[in-house]
């Protein structure tokens, strides 16, 4: 086994209030306040993900999941510690991220593909597959600004999933989209997993995590609260105590 992601004593701060103008800064400094109070989003976090593992990242809102994903995908840099990854990363941190509303679906597929690191030949080769999966063939030449949110989500997922990445990062994108589409996505993620690619999957939906992942990390206020089998993680989070919510019930049908 080889490592795919190494997170080693990583901390990340965010500045809470930005005193931007000179006046604000001087006033604060004179009051003896900190000019920019900081908030610790990730606190000395360490773990390793092996190549081919499918890891579910869980935790309450604000526990640092998205920050961690952004660090792994390279959008943010850690303040302390080191993040190392191996191979090509493709991810879907937010569905709409790489899309420009005024460009057509076709143009956006090429643009988003290029942003995710594909070249022209690669996108050409994947084009039909992407369009098929997203089911937008009729609207290819319509600006994506006019797409419904479901179409948007489908297209975003479809492009990201088509990249031959070694590490696939998915952040709660499956919260949008209808049950049939979610089903399709889950099937696709399973396929990615079975190809031996590493997956980091963020979800509050315990059923989805159970189905897809072999291991779960639970974040609590920027620290690693739990690392182990999914079933125990769910228990740890006490998500199972309140009984199944609608999401779970729906996920159970998959």
């Amino acid at each position, binding site marked *: 086994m080889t490592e795919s992601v190494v997170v080693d004593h990583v901390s990340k701060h965010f500045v809470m209030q930005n005193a931007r103008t000179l006046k604000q800064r001087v006033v604060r400094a004179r009051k003896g306040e900190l000019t920019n109070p900081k908030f610790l989003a990730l606190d000395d976090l360490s773990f390793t993900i092996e190549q081919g593992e499918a890891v579910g990242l869980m935790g309450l809102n604000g526990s640092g999941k998205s920050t961690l994903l952004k660090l792994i995908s390279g959008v943010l840099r850690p303040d302390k510690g080191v993040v190392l990854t*191996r191979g090509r990363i493709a991810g879907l941190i937010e569905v709409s991220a790489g899309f420009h509303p005024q460009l057509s679906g076709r143009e956006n597929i090429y*643009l988003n593909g*290029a942003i995710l*690191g594909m070249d022209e030949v690669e996108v050409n080769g994947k084009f039909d597959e992407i369009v098929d999966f997203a089911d937008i063939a009729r609207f290819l030449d319509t600006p994506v600004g006019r797409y419904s949110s479901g179409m948007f989500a489908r297209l975003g997922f479809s492009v990201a999933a088509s990249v031959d990445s070694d590490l696939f990062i998915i952040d709660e994108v499956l919260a949008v989209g209808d049950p049939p589409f979610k089903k399709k996505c889950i099937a696709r993620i399973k396929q990615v997993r079975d190809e031996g690619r590493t997956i980091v999957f963020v979800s509050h939906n315990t059923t989805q995590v159970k189905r897809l992942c072999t291991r779960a990390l639970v974040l609590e206020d920027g620290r690693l609260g739990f690392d182990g089998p999914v079933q125990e993680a769910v228990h740890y989070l006490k998500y199972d105590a309140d009984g199944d919510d609608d999401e779970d019930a729906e996920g159970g049908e998959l």
Partner: protein
Amino acid sequence: MTAALREEHPLGPMRPPGDTTGLFGVFRRRYLLRLLVRKELRVRYQASLLGLGWSYMKPLIRFSMYFFVIGILLGLRENVPLFALHIFTAMIMVSFFTETLNAGTKSVVKNKSLVRKMNVPREMFPVASTAVTAYHMGPQYVILVGACLLLGWSPDPTALLAGLLGIAIMLSISLAVALAFSALNVSFRDIGNFVETIGMMVMWSAPQLYPWEFVDDQIGGTWLEQVYLANPVAVATLLNQRAFWIPTLDSDIDTTGFMPDGLMLRGVIMLGCCIALVAVAQWIFSRLETSFAEKL
């Protein structure tokens, strides 16, 4: 031992995610750059009737105003031979700089959603703005060359060299400014106001609406002349005039004093300085870039 094993892994070594190769990274991902430039062009002219026609219209109107006010009302057309061409050769250079300055400064902030959520070399954005401006300059160069040929352009080798040198200086200084200012603009939105001021200063501090002779008459031989000629836009403008305006003048006109002494040497030194400035700007950009995603 482990290090050697890692190097041999088929997926490559473990490394920090995120592209930090700067301008080289942009060069390596030319395909993405091309698409970003195309996107910018599409978006800029979407729902506009004239479309790319604007890149002819705007300079045409500006040129007409300059010529009418300075050339006719203030009568400079009588002092300067082919004054229209004098203005146009300069205008190309000056507006290249100011347009890159304006668009480049905003480039990172405008691509907020990409910067915050996707992993692309961030230098991509200022480079793309510079490329977009260069694309718009194309038609103007076509008009310039066409006009010169009609008026009897007979370029000597020095003229051609001057033309290329002028373009090279303009591209490198614009890129340097776009890189540095786009990064500074993320933390300090004051830059927007600063940029307007620079744009105004540049418009007046290159020999566009007045000939070099006036500068030489008033401040020639003083330290102010050296300050004037330390401005890359002024030097690029003079070089462009050396390339297109001087060789188009009637051969019986005595052109001594039309250009500063040692212009070509100055141009070469200036190009070196501007390339060094690109390196400095890249350094500034890399320093600031690490906190882009959280500041936007």
